[in-house]
């Protein structure tokens, strides 16, 4: 047990040096991409902002159901299925059928090909809609997969838009990830005040252009209060142009009154439609509606055919810049809600690193001192094992490019405290064996053999706890679990190989002498 073959020893130390070299490389600048690996600092240590955004897709589900009304009616008429009592509610469409038409309806409803109201979703192998029939009343609603389809489309689209908006603001290394079925996790290192970003992400930025009418009729028209003048205007529900047709938007100053405005350019289709509408309606007013509010309603002076236009309103240059940014990056399908927010200022991060490192050094020195006082020479062995353990722990974390958090530092300190346990178990066992066994080598050998079982049992149980913590933990806790798990593994390595090898050197040198632990 004590004996190692030469190749084994070489292999162990090579592995040790390879891993621990990365610990040192953390503090040295290199150009080689392979050696450039570094431990990342978590947001709690470097400062930054963590936002968990929730996509509320209920309005989209409502819209999806409503968009089914016309194609459904059309289809029923085409196939001469008679229906009456047609009711549209938030989540379903209800209507009555004659008994003899039910069979026919069912086949029409479940047609896979050419079905343009109940679309078959290949990726889920299921239909978008489902129906229930109760007393000849049919109830059509979104299927489970239909809802999932809408939700995931909304989340994916939102991620894209969020990414574009954050890129436009120009923060350093943002991370934008999907979390669960309806959440987006945004991590912004170095951001001290996320308010502006939250504001920009909180707007859907749905822009459209509609004509102002004199028609006071409720049907087909909507009333708006103009932001600038507080004037009440009546606007047609027909959308001439929406934000989708925009290809660029930039903040500008108006040539005449030097007010900030947003200049936009349209794509080909948008330019054509805008040209047609403005030519036909010279002298009328066109309302610019953003997120359900009328920004302005200028009079069409001339036909605009070049595809360029401007939006004026009550802007400061900042708000014009923001609006241009929002229009460039596109509209969110639905508003995002901030479900969780954590922001740490850079000075608190620095303080945390400082106190974390100080407590690590102090804890480390205390343990080292204690071990020397308790075990003398073997204490040095334990301490060498402890130092190599720490080097490997940091080295592995670097190789993994793990994220170090404040609880992660606590995990390292805890590892320092618990790591000597393996050595203590070995030494105490050897001490017992020495009492019964005259032959030093025999005693040490037995001591190792017996203690290693216990060490494995003891560390595996803790490893189980920390792996589960890693799987279910979030944010900083994950950081703790990572350092603790890696620490347990490096502890096993340093006890099993490094302490054992060092102890064997001492024993073989003092074969005949009485060894005191």
């Amino acid at each position: 047990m004590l004996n190692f073959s030469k190749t084994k020893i070489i292999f162990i130390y090579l592995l040790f040096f390879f891993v621990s070299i990365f610990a040192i490389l953390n503090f040295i600048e290199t150009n080689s991409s392979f050696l450039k690996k570094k431990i990342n600092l978590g947001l709690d240590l470097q400062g930054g902002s963590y936002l968990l955004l929730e996509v509320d897709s209920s309005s989209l589900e409502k819209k999806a159901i409503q968009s089914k009304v016309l194609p459904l009616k059309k289809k029923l008429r085409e196939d001469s299925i008679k229906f009456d009592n047609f009711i549209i509610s938030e989540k379903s469409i209800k209507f009555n059928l004659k008994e003899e038409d039910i069979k026919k309806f069912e086949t029409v409803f479940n047609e896979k090909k050419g079905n343009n109201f109940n679309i078959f979703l290949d990726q889920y192998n299921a239909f978008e809609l489902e129906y229930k029939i109760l007393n000849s009343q049919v109830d059509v609603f979104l299927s489970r997969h239909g809802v999932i389809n809408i939700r995931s489309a909304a989340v994916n689209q939102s991620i894209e838009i969020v990414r574009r908006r954050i890129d436009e603001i120009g923060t350093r290394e943002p991370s934008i990830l999907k979390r669960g079925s309806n959440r987006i996790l945004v991590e912004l290192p170095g951001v001290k005040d996320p308010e502006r970003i939250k504001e920009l992400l909180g707007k859907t930025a749905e822009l459209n252009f509609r004509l102002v009418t004199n028609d006071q009729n409720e049907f087909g028209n909507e009333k708006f209060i103009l932001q600038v003048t507080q004037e009440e205007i009546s606007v047609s529900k027909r959308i001439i142009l929406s934000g989708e047709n925009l290809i660029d938007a930039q903040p500008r100053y108006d040539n005449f009154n030097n007010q900030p405005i947003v200049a936009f350019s349209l794509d080909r289709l948008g330019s054509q439609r805008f040209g047609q509408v403005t030519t036909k309606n010279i002298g009328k007013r066109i309302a610019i509606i953003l997120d359900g509010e009328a920004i302005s309603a200028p009079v069409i002076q001339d036909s605009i055919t070049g595809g360029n236009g401007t939006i004026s309103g009550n802007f400061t240059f900042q708000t014009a810049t923001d609006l241009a940014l929002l229009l460039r990056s596109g509209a969110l399908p639905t508003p995002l809600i901030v479900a969780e927010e954590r922001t740490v200022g850079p000075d608190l991060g620095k303080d945390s690193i400082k106190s974390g490192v100080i407590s690590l050094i102090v804890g480390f020195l205390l343990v080292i001192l204690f071990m020397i006082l308790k075990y003398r020479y073997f204490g040095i062995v334990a301490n060498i094992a402890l130092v190599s353990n720490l080097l490997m722990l940091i080295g592995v974390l670097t190789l993994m490019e793990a994220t170090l958090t404040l609880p992660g530092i606590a995990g390292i300190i805890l590892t320092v405290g618990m790591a000597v346990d393996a050595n203590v178990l070995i030494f105490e066992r050897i001490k017992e064996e020495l009492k019964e066994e005259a032959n030093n080598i025999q005693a040490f050998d037995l001591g190792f053999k017996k203690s290693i079982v216990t060490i494995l049992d003891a560390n595996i149980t803790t490893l189980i706890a920390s792996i589960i913590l890693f799987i279910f933990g979030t944010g900083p806790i994950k950081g703790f679990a990572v350092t603790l798990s890696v620490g347990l593994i490096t502890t096993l390595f340093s006890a099993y190989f490094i302490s054992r090898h060092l102890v064997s050197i001492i024993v073989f040198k003092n074969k005949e002498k009485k060894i005191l632990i």
Partner: protein
Amino acid sequence: MKNNYNFESKFKLANLISFFLVIGSLLLIIFKGLNFGIDFKGGTLIELRIDSKNVRISDVRSAFSNMNLGDVNVKEFGKEGDYLIKFEKKTFNKNESIKTIKDNVINKLGSEVNFRRVESVGPKVSQELLNSGMLAISLALGAMLFYIWVRFEWQFSLGSILAIFHDVLITMGLFSLLSLEINLSIVAAVLTIVGYSMNDTVVIYDRIRENLRKFSSLKIGEISNTSINETLSRTIITSVTTLLALFSIFILGGEILRGFALAMIIGVLVGTYSSIFVASPILKYLNVSFKTIEKENEEA
């Protein structure tokens, strides 16, 4: 030097004390409750640093009043001029946001206010964090039990689980008694306590199993006693080095880690005690003998 304390004779008294401590902790947890932080209750937390010497805690308190934030709790946090403010408000509508709160506070306290940390957890997320924390703890317990059951016998499994419940309940009881905050890092601490206590228990159980084979004629009480004595110096040394590291975090690691370190310190002390005075007597009460582990060998 060989340890030879008579632990067995103290088992009854220790178990009585443990029993009352656990019952007391349970009563505290049920009737006084635990002081959940914003991670699990939802709400907003703000850490402020105010450089101006003229600002007192009462000024900070009044700066946060009249903003309709629900129950506002202001306390000093570590260094002079550092404050931790917590309030129940979880969701903000369009017109009131963290920004308006910040503006309001700067208005009242002057511009030397540094917002070092702002955390806000919505009701849905806090419920999920609580659930996943509970799930993590239960799963960890389950997995460890399974491991012990595979490596030992069911009596050992039962003994170690009771020891763990003992440790976690007493730690939580103390947190309830002292109204200390339970947040995400406390969950991590509890799981580490579970791991540590299990670790300690396993070392003693390992020795008991070994001695059962060695001295098949001896009674479990005596064997437990010998085993505890044989492993005693290891038990104490490991506790001491772990506690050295933990006290270092507790004193020097800063305000944020203090709760975590305290939970761990309590847990390590209780865990060390329980592996001697809870986990071992249970084997005695379950009449574990040489036969128990012999059966295991035959099956294998």
